[in-house]
């Protein structure tokens, strides 16, 4: 069985606010959700969205996932009433590091008060699969359910896993996404310690002055359904998830393969999975972390995978507006791509002012563009690459207008 997979709902909590609209509209307006070198979801108060019990029983990454998932499920018209039996609905949510805030808090308890004082909630809050399990519990999603863990590619891996489940008829609907809340003392200092984060505190992907990523937090979620049932129930189709592929660099613990071998293979395979030609790519939603190494190797990979078509494809990075959401990044960026096409825009790379002579693609500096109409629905790829050498690429086609 192979079915086309529709995206019927989206949700996001990001440093630009609660809600997917805030993400795309504020990004395109040039707003940046970075304060003092960190991209926190400052506008997110769990008490506004979750009951006492829900808050107590969820680490912040799961709280973010719950709110993004609820938005996607509501947006899709899955509440009240899932589009099919709960047993036929999957839930796949990725994360980079899971409940690290809980781990740090409980380690303090262990050190200060001893093992007998550790919370019985420590394990269920810290476990990296908590977001998928708790979202499934909240909405009665009883099909295949787990978390993907692949650092900054986890959100895209979750989307790809969900695509395959729906495409091949394993489930008849799937909630997919990613969540991260790692702006904590240990995680923050660890990223600084390894030299990954920006000393300037500015996220400016592809710019000559880029000096590392800005640590962010948040969650993104998408509701996936097969085309036939989605049309029959009259669902509003926001876009199509038409392709996915993932590869490994098998090269280095953190550095991307300099010639972009693994990422280029993922891009090419994803496009092939979608049945597209490189010249049909209207937008590249880049991983674009603002690290010296990623933005160079990603540029090389795009040229390898797209060939001559790379020069004509607009490339931009959401991380210029929201920093790097790690395991949530791929999901949040997929949501932004869907909504960009829905609005008929190509979102910009904010802060891009000084070109790097080695990086010569069209990075859509600072201001959004109208999406050119070319007689067919627009097509985008969204790249996600993670420490460990993980590469995951998804292909999104707009619903057409």
């Amino acid at each position, binding site marked *: 069985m192979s079915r086309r997979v529709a995206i019927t709902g989206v949700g996001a909590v990001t440093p630009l606010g609660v809600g997917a609209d805030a993400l795309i509209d504020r990004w395109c307006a040039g707003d940046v959700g970075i304060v003092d070198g960190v991209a926190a979801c400052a506008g997110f108060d769990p008490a506004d969205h979750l*009951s006492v*019990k829900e808050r*107590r*029983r969820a680490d912040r990454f799961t709280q973010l996932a719950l709110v993004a998932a609820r938005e996607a499920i509501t947006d899709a018209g899955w509440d009240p009433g899932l589009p099919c039996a709960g047993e036929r609905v999957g839930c796949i949510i990725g994360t980079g590091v899971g409940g690290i805030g809980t781990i740090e808090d409980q380690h303090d308890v262990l050190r200060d008060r001893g093992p007998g004082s550790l919370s019985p909630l420590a394990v269920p809050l810290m476990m990296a699969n908590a977001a998928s399990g708790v979202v499934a519990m909240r909405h009665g999603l009883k099909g295949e359910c787990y978390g993907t863990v692949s650092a900054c590619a986890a959100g895209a891996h979750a989307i790809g896993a969900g695509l395959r489940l729906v495409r091949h008829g394993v489930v008849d609907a799937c909630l997919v996404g990613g969540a991260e809340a790692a702006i904590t003392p240990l995680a923050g200092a660890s990223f600084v310690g390894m030299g990954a984060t920006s000393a300037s505190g500015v996220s400016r992907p592809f710019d000559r002055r880029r000096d590392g990523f800005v640590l962010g937090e948040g969650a993104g979620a998408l509701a996936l359904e097969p085309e036939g049932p989605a049309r029959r129930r009259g669902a509003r189709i926001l876009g199509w998830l038409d392709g996915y592929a993932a590869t490994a660099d098998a090269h280095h613990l953190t550095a991307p393969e300099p010639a972009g071998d693994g990422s280029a293979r993922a891009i090419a395979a994803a496009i092939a999975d979608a049945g597209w030609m490189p010249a049909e790519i209207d937008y590249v939603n880049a991983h674009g972390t603002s690290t010296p190494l990623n933005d160079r190797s990603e540029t090389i990979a795009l040229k390898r995978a797209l060939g001559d078509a790379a020069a004509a494809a607009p490339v931009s990075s959401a991380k210029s507006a929201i920093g790097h959401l790690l395991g949530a990044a791929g999901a949040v960026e997929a949501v932004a791509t869907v909504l960009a096409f829905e609005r008929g825009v190509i979102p910009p790379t904010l802060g891009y002012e000084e070109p790097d002579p080695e990086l010569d693609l069209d990075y859509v500096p600072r201001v959004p563009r109208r999406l050119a109409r070319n007689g067919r629905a627009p097509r985008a790829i969204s790249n996600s690459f993670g420490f460990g050498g993980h590469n995951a690429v998804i292909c999104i086609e707009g619903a057409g207008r």
Partner: protein
Amino acid sequence: MASTTLTPEAVEARVGAALIEFGADPGAISPAATWEELDIDSLDLVELAQMIEDDYGVELRESDIEQLETVADAVAAVIERAG
């Protein structure tokens, strides 16, 4: 440890405050209320036992907790063992 007032009313108030912190509906808390009625599960009861040990110096084992069914049972267990 064991410094809190040990009247049934005081212990009941302390237990009630903990249950509210766990997310129980304040209006539903009464001596006769069961854990099921209050949506209090085994994870909450482990936390309740930790609170009781911290505040009253009373150690409730898992087997003790399993015997408790209502708010009144928990209050009585504290009074009995601390007495």
